[in-house]
């Protein structure tokens, strides 16, 4: 079957055609008789009209235009695209979870609360934290939650002047965005020649204005932050807090814990480290952990066990509610499932497998591609195409696009920002040696290919490179009559 474009739903509509018919019942009355006419619309909504099979085919065809982990290796750095076990999908669909109403009484949802209680404890143990909230819907919401806690903590202590959040120049964009959103002033510190935080550059910011330092460890360069203990000591001596961006926690599972490194606050991405599917852009979950006094500031509610019953409660100095209801609950079910069938040993093997696979791939590519920082990496590493760009005019984006032709998803490109022409590769622990070898062979082949061929890639995908400038200049964000 050719993978040419699929018309939109709106081009396939046929007036009067029906898909699925919802249950109907005659109550002998019409509610419209009791409601003023100006509130009611007599015009049916503008939706497409298709048969069930047409809808089914439409979306199956659309799906075929996508790459996913199940179809190909997805070496997207910092995104931890590991295999999503299907048992997670089975447990998340148990009617006793999937059909629960968020407002039903705690007494009638004890199994759900029990699962949440255990998951809180497991994540606390994995990260070395004292308390966990499961509420944040994604990593970025976790970051914002933690920063609101930081603000509330200092307000309570009468240290309102602590307005500065420091981020390294290698940080995720969400870090400064979350800090600014939470009302902090953002200061960026440079990395040193090793890819670690430049301690000398950090020093001037370790003062009475410092609220928090946000660190990803391993960093977005895939490197363990060598100075972590010095940094933690310095931040704490200055009265500040240390925040752990858990995007890269997969590398450390069972081998190291943020709490033991001196971090005070942590967020995790369950859709990365704990294998819940990314879904083409979510849903995820971004639980936040806290140590010591900060536990009292966690958002409401958290789950506790009182006299053998599981209850929601509001921590003493809680920042309040940060989303509706109790978190992306079915994502939590999946992550809990993953933790239970791995156990302590299995999780440690996950982290080790991820680090082994990344270092192996790095060893295969070294010498053919320039490595941004030539050190033992953790779960991912960063290459740079700066020489290739200079000598052959083949950029990181070109290499990424050429990989699509060979049936691989692309690495993360142009991130972290401090590496020119960056290609960030994270194979994850679930790729076999054979797959890693095939991927490495392909990378090596691309390095030798005709630059014109690489620059104009991809050639065999459903569409070629898209005109993103046109998309932004004349935005077409919905279907309208007359479009083609």
């Amino acid at each position, binding site marked *: 079957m050719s993978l040419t474009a699929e018309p939109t739903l709106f081009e396939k509509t046929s007036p009067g055609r029906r898909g699925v018919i919802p249950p109907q019942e005659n109550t002998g009355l019409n509610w419209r008789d009791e409601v003023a006419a100006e509130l009611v619309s007599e015009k049916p909504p503008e939706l497409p009209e298709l048969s069930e099979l047409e809808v089914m085919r439409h979306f199956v065809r659309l799906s075929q235009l996508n790459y996913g982990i199940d179809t190909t290796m997805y070496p997207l750095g910092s995104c931890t695209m590991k295999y999503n076990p299907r048992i997670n999908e089975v447990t998340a669909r148990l009617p006793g979870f999937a059909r629960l109403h968020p407002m*039903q009484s705690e007494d009638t949802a004890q199994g759900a609360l029990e699962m949440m209680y255990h998951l809180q404890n497991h994540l606390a143990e994995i990260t070395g934290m004292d308390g966990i909230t499961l509420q944040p819907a994604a990593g970025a919401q976790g970051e914002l939650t933690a920063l609101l806690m930081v603000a509330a903590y200092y307000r309570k202590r009468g240290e309102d002047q602590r307005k500065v959040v420091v981020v390294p120049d290698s940080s995720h964009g969400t870090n400064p965005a979350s800090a600014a959103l939470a009302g902090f002033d953002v200061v960026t510190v440079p990395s040193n020649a090793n890819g670690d935080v430049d301690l000398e550059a950090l020093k001037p910011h370790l003062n009475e204005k410092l609220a928090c330092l946000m660190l990803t460890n391993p960093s977005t360069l895939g490197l363990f932050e060598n100075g972590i203990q010095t940094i933690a000591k310095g931040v704490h001596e200055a009265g500040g807090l240390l925040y752990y961006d858990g995007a890269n926690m997969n590398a450390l599972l069972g081998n190291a814990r943020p709490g033991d490194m001196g971090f005070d606050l942590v967020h995790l991405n369950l859709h990365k480290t704990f294998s819940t*599917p990314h879904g083409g852009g979510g849903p995820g979950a971004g639980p936040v952990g806290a140590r010591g006094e900060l536990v009292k500031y966690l958002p409401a509610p958290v789950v506790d066990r009182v006299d053998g019953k599981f209850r929601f409660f509001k921590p003493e100095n809680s920042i309040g509610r940060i989303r509706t209801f109790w978190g992306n609950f079915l994502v939590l079910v999946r992550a809990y499932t993953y933790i239970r069938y791995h156990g302590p040993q299995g999780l440690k093997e996950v982290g080790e497998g991820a680090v082994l696979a990344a270092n192996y791939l790095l060893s295969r590519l070294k010498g053919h591609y320039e490595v941004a920082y030539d050190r033992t990496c953790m779960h991912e590493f960063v290459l740079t195409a700066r020489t290739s760009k200079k000598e052959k005019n083949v950029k990181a984006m070109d290499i990424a696009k050429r990989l699509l032709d060979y049936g691989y998803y692309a690495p993360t490109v142009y991130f972290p920002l401090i590496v020119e022409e960056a290609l960030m590769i994270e194979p994850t622990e679930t790729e076999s040696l054979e797959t890693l070898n095939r991927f490495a062979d392909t990378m090596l082949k691309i390095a030798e290919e005709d630059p014109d061929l690489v620059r104009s890639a991809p050639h065999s995908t459903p569409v070629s490179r898209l005109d993103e400038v046109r998309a932004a200049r004349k935005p077409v964000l919905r279907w309208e009559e007359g479009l083609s």
Partner: protein
Amino acid sequence: MNYVPHTAGDRQKMLASIGKQEVSELFDSIPPGARLTRALNLPEQLSEYEVALHLEELASKNMVPSRLSFLGAGAYRHFVPAVVDTIIQRSEFMTAYTPYQPEVSQGTLQSIFEFQTMMCNLTGMDVCNASVYDGGCAAVDAVFMALSISGRHKVVVSEGLHPQTRELLRTYIDTHAGELIEAPLQDGRTVWPELNDEVACTLFQTPNFLGVIEDGAALCARTKEAGAIPVVSVGDPCSLAVLKRPGDFGGEIVVGDAQPIGLPLSYGGPYAGFVACKKQHMRRIPGRLCGMTVDSQGRRGFCLTLQAREQHIRRDKAFSNICTNQGLCALAVTVYLALLGPQGLKEVADASANLAHYFKKQVASLDGYKLVLNQPFFHEVLVECPGSAEALLKTLEGRGIVGGYLVEKDYPQYKNCLLFCFTEANGKAAVDELVNALQHAHRPLEGATRS
């Protein structure tokens, strides 16, 4: 489960290529004090079979709402066709990342474009984003948008807005130096206080938390007279099939949660919040947007666009920090709307509203029960109960009925009142059972004799 596929032989080959003897050497960059030297204190690993049993056991401790559930209050149990779950379990949708490489993500991108289109059509807006975390967070986003567009600082919020969404606003408002002013309901309907030139926006929900259909035209007109932005939160989006759309009555930003149109209750998440707006506010909308364009050969294609608003480009100057959203949930909604079509969605809304109005007639004739509000409503009805509503809920629970929502937690003025919700998934027989149970519930002795 053998999740990591590397055999002992593989590991040796890999280590040899790296130039190490042991996997543990790869972790030598972690300083000794930060290295975990014991096993994690977690329950021992289970087989796939055992883990399924364990989760089944936990799930079985919950009471599963059935057709005898009359609880709404912001999360609604509608019928979801089988095709929806089939599609969202397609590997290529479920195991894909955010569509950063559009050439191999056209499926995700086009479905987002279709989602944006259908949500625009339902709300009467020009632009809709690709989803945000939930309906409450969408309302917070809209308020931030309005603060930033208007340069004003006051936000007037109706008491008819979901109580949890009002809680969210209280959590977040300080970060934008905004001031919240709550407008109390009068007989269940929103009445704005005096609005002046300090007001950035007003925010009301329709149908509101108590089920009442607001006079959106009047509320929006008053808002615009003050030069403020009317923000409308949609109660249950299926109502958009039969009620005037926010775009028709003057709304400029429309938010809501699309859970009722395609997603199971899921104990509160994951759902799909959305933010839609009129064209003039387009460049201030948070979250992903998908646009239609052409490829290098002139063929139609889709890509993420207007990314200059977003955190990965703008960092601390971004309008929002959102990255991962609720993509797969938005896909479920897209499939649902395509399956139901205009007639189907209208039937869902009509059936729900008709059952609610049928219930109203029945309950009004019961001894001791009183309708609290004298206002037009959609599919939720506020009823004052004889005696303790909390005790009544317990009694109903004993009969397998998930009764209404106890509103006095959030609205102390409505003591012993329950908010009952009706959808096409209840059916008339269930409503009759509820009415029967209500009739006898407050007379436990008689009820006991009868059963």
